[in-house]
């Protein structure tokens, strides 16, 4: 990401009506940053600092007002909508509100990205069951999303983001609805993925998480990134799925 600006018009209706010039909001100001493959990065900052805007730009959900954005080698700012959707299929996205489809059950929700990726039924089943095992939701595979607690929903959401073995995971406030113990366990699991070459970017305003875990910390203040620090490390109770390590060897699961 190089010299990225993102400017919003506060009152776009006034432009249409030809009234007084609309006020502009500078969400990001000449932001430049580079994430290395396998890096574990926290993106922090107060509400309104531009965290979500930055994530939207990385995912190709928004267009910068200026500058260049490269995600996994693709110039996102130049891609059309079809190519952007193709790119997002290769990224694991974790939402604060999990964004699960309530008309599908746990299994079907996790299976969705594999459908988009065009995987066969057997492979889909294998991966879904394994990732559900990892997030300790295998017993809930056939259950409706409505019957799950907030923490369980978030675990399903995380399973959905990991099931395609993405090389980049982007999480926007993933622990917002979780209790501290579950939140820490899941962050630990995400952190350990970097050992398999996966880049993880987590936007959060929970500074206790940032303090407790290792990795680079990017702090957004007023739409720019003035500071970068290093966090601490910890262990996790979850295992990285076997298909992630590229082998079906039962011993290849890594204790986290």
């Amino acid at each position, binding site marked *: 990401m190089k010299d990225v600006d993102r400017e919003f018009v506060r009152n776009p209706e006034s432009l249409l009506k030809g009234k007084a010039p609309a006020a502009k909001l500078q969400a990001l100001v000449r932001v430049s940053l580079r994430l290395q493959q396998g890096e574990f990065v926290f993106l922090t900052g107060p509400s309104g600092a531009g965290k979500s805007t930055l994530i939207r730009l990385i995912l190709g959900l928004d267009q910068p007002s200026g500058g260049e954005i490269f995600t996994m080698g693709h110039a996102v700012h130049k891609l059309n909508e079809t190519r952007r*959707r193709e790119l997002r299929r290769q990224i694991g996205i974790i939402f604060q509100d999990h964004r699960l*489809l309530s008309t*599908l059950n746990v299994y079907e929700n996790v299976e969705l990205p594999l459908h988009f990726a065009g995987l066969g039924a057997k492979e889909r089943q294998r991966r879904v069951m394994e990732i559900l095992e990892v997030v300790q939701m295998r017993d809930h595979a056939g259950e409706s999303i409505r019957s799950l607690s907030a923490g369980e929903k978030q675990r399903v959401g995380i399973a*959905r983001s990991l099931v395609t073995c993405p090389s980049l995971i982007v999480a926007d406030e993933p622990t917002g609805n979780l209790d501290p113990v579950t939140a820490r366990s899941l962050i630990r699991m995400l952190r350990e993925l970097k050992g398999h070459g996966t880049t993880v970017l987590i936007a959060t305003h929970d500074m206790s998480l940032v303090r407790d875990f290792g990795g680079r910390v990017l702090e957004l203040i007023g739409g720019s990134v003035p500071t970068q620090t290093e966090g601490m490390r910890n262990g996790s109770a979850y295992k990285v799925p076997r298909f992630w390590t590229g082998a079906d060897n039962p011993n290849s699961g890594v204790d986290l």
Partner: protein
Amino acid sequence: MMRPFSAFMTLLAIAFSLSLLGGFWTVVENLEKVRIAGISSLPGEGLPGLTVFVDPKLNKAELETFKSELLTNPRFTSASVVPADEALDSLKSQFGETLSKAFEESSLPTALKLQFASGTLSRTEFLNLLNDLRSKPGVLDVDEGLGAFSPKENAVSERVFSWATGLLLLVFVVVALLVSHLIRLAFEAIRGEIETLKILGASRTRIFAPLFLEGLIFGITGGLVAIFFVSIFFSYLVPNARLFMLPAQFEMATLSLNASISLAGLGILASVAGALLTWPLVDQPAQEL
């Protein structure tokens, strides 16, 4: 995929809209049936009928053959020959001796009185039947009874039917728009889920195909339910309740095959249109995160 309650309510609304159209269509068909019954029967006769004037040169055997040929048409139940002399006697009894002298016995054609079988006859079918009869060899003319009504009555009848047909077309368009927008609104309710699919990278086709299929199922099911409702209403409820206070001998037309096909077709077309209206929702870039 839509939630069950939302899907049920949408389906009910579609079926109700199409039922209204089907009901109105059937009322218009019955109106036409009443009109045809009126113009095709002479006053005083119970059932509608036609009078066919045939060439007086036909002998009795030829006349019988012609009569048998006409009765092969299931539209008619009976045909009775009125010879020229009987016709003259009838004229004398109606208009008196003096006036009837204007007709010479030899100038009067032989007449065949045809009685319609009970059932529905559309305006087009009725006019086709008249043309068919008039084109048969030996037929001089067919009296469809239009003379029984004054030109003013005919004009009023024509106008009522034209207005009813116009209104039917209007209702058709309104129902088509209503159904298509109902489907679009139903999909608007799952906008959040569509946005999620877009963020996760689902292609347009992958999002649109199930929406399209679901819309199509709504249209087909809604059409079938509407056909069922209207058929039940006109074949059982209306005759038993005598809602329109029609004479006992008038057999009410129920939803015709044409109307049923049109209703189902409209359901499908409107649902396809409704599904297509959701395309911008699928096509535009994801708005939320």
